[in-house]
């Protein structure tokens, strides 16, 4: 199903929750809303579901204006962060509930519930139990099964994995795109975690303070952010940045170094920001074109296979993410390098400067 927002905004009293937004979701795939807490993910989903009415603008399902259509009349399923099930019903009845509302015959209900419970690994034994007797992972599987069995055209998943253990999250995250891929449903998935967006793939809209900053195929948005806010929002560990001055043909760095890149030779003089991801900052120089940087170690975090070295370089605080174990002590001075091709250049407005 296609879903389109035309200049949709939402104000609650004087407070803007969603700035005027135009967005056309990609049908039949995962559409990820990525942004920090209070960036408008849930507000957007409530507008999609019809739980809230927009203050301005129009919403279209398959080209039909549904702006005024209430939630019951839209074919939508939603799964929340908290595990929400009917506590007094068995798991089977929980999953069957939307089908009973539709008035389907029992034999068909049995068949459909059987099919989705198998997909979600809810065994016959678990189907007879009450939700409270299940683990968190199984409770959320029940809620997902109910969303799946309804065969809704639009499925809204609002941080559904956040209350689960790390490993369970990993498992369900891997299953989710496949569960919905055969149903033809358009899925919207909200998350605060850049890694989760990358693992789920599909399309991503990055959000910040009620605004969609960019929308496109997930990996394209990650590899090619068009502004500083998107690059920052879609980076974990956080994006490293430094201010530079364009003077003549070169950029002057804070440490008096020079950065010459043919690609940017003709951009106007002025102040710019270079952004680069922590894993692109390297401890050992590899080729001539690299940008040389130095810094002082603040603290090193080691995860067993990777090192996160927090550094201070002039007024900047950076993280260097290296493969392998590099136990650098606080106070150590390190020389680092960075390849120009891994740098994003932003102007003083925060817009990305590409080739000129």
């Amino acid at each position, binding site marked *: 199903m296609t879903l389109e927002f035309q200049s949709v905004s939402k104000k609650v009293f004087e407070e803007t929750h969603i700035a005027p937004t135009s967005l056309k979701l990609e049908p039949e795939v995962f559409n990820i809303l990525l942004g920090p807490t209070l960036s408008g993910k849930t507000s957007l989903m409530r507008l999609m579901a019809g739980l809230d009415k927009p203050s301005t603008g129009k919403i279209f399902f398959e080209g039909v204006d549904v702006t005024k259509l209430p939630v019951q009349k839209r074919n939508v399923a939603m799964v929340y962060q908290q595990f929400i099930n009917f506590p007094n019903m068995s798991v089977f009845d929980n999953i069957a509930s939307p089908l009973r509302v539709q008035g389907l015959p029992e034999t068909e209900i049995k068949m459909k519930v059987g099919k989705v419970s198998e997909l979600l690994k809810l065994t016959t034994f678990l189907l007879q139990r009450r939700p409270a007797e299940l683990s968190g992972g199984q409770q959320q599987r029940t809620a997902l099964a109910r969303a799946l069995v309804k065969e809704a055209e639009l499925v809204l998943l609002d941080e559904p994995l956040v209350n689960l253990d*790390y490993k369970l999250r990993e498992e369900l995250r891997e299953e989710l795109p496949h569960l919905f891929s055969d149903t033809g449903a358009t899925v919207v998935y909200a998350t605060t975690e850049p890694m989760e967006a990358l693992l789920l793939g599909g399309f991503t809209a990055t959000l910040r303070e009620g605004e969609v900053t960019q929308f496109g195929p997930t990996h394209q948005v990650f590899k090619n952010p068009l502004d500083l806010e998107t690059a920052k929002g879609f980076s974990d560990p956080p994006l490293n940045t430094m201010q530079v001055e364009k003077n003549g043909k070169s950029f002057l760095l804070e440490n008096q170094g020079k950065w010459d890149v043919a690609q940017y030779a003709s951009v106007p003089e002025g102040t710019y920001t270079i952004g680069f991801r922590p894993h692109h900052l390297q401890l050992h120089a590899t080729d001539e074109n690299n940008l040389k940087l130095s810094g002082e170690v603040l603290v090193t975090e080691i*995860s*067993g296979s990777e090192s996160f070295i927090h550094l201070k370089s002039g007024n900047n605080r950076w993280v260097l993410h290296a493969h392998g174990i590099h136990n650098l002590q606080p106070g150590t001075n390190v020389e680092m390098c960075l390849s120009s091709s891994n740098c994003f250049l932003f102007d003083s407005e925060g817009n990305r400067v590409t080739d000129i």
Partner: protein
Amino acid sequence: MVHTMAEISLQNISHSYQRLPNGSADYALRNVDLTCRKGGAYALLGPSGCGKTTILNIVSGLLMPTDGKVLFDGEDVTTHPPDQRNIAQVFQFPVVYDTMSVHDNLAFPLRNRNMDHLQIEERVKDVAEMLELTDSLHKKASGLTADGKQKISLGRGLVRPDVNVMMFDEPLTVIDPHLKWELRSKLKQLHRRFDFTMIYVTHDQTEALTFADEVAVMYEGEVVQVGTPDELFERPTHTFVGHFIGSPGMNLLPCTLVDGYPLFSGNRIQLPSPLPPVEPDQRLEIGIRPEFIKLDPEGFFVNVNRVDDVGRYRIIKAECGGSLLNVYVPEGVAIPSENVRVSFDPEHTQVYCEGWLHERKEAA
């Protein structure tokens, strides 16, 4: 600032929530031995229900263990109530007095102890500086964001001069990813400066491994392995640890042993030295992390089911002889379009017998 921290030792602790436990299944904790040396940073890592929080409650004195002893600096405190143990705790959700200012929140535990006014001011000022809260000292706590409130919870522990151990129960759950990095490194920096004894409970491996000097991995009420982050990563003693740590976790592939070397799907796997034989009916598996499998034209053939691109690296989801395996491919390394062959790094190839590491015989 002076802190008196203690060594915390758990000796053969078992705990059941039932009054008359009957058999080991009734126990939430079984025979836990764990020593947290003075000034060390420890993490308890495991899935929900593995007993992590039960241990915290036993250390803090909220629970009295069914069996075993709790020692603080060698002194048996098993029967001491919480208020005699001098523990600071930070919970999943920030606990602050919303109507008080940040300053009064930090001063509160010291006022309760009737500390001298000037001394209180000095300590509050120091702690606020450490946590970068100086500018918000006179703001109401209710106006702060989740990470600011969590800093206050931490500060209320730091400000006390009498704390034996600081305990953290999933303290970053409600914090956004960007701020998690900031708070975590702050905590690590503070630990390096002041050497508190710290115990940190989490199900998140990245948090546990980056925070702690030593991590205790728990599973169903037992401590399976205690080790440094790189020990747990490179040499898990049990397949559960291999699976739980790493993302994706360790590949586990059924094998047999022929002349001391594992045979997997018809391929002889290289090891630094041969392994001793096992009983014929024992279950054997190779444990190899995705990071230690390399694309190698000289290696053995695998079927590629799918490639997941995570931006910084890719994971090949492959199949060989009916077993699934994940292969880590760093940025910049090309994946051949057909005839994908891999090899295992012998130094990092482990063999497990009935789930436990099958050790090489050390030369005498």
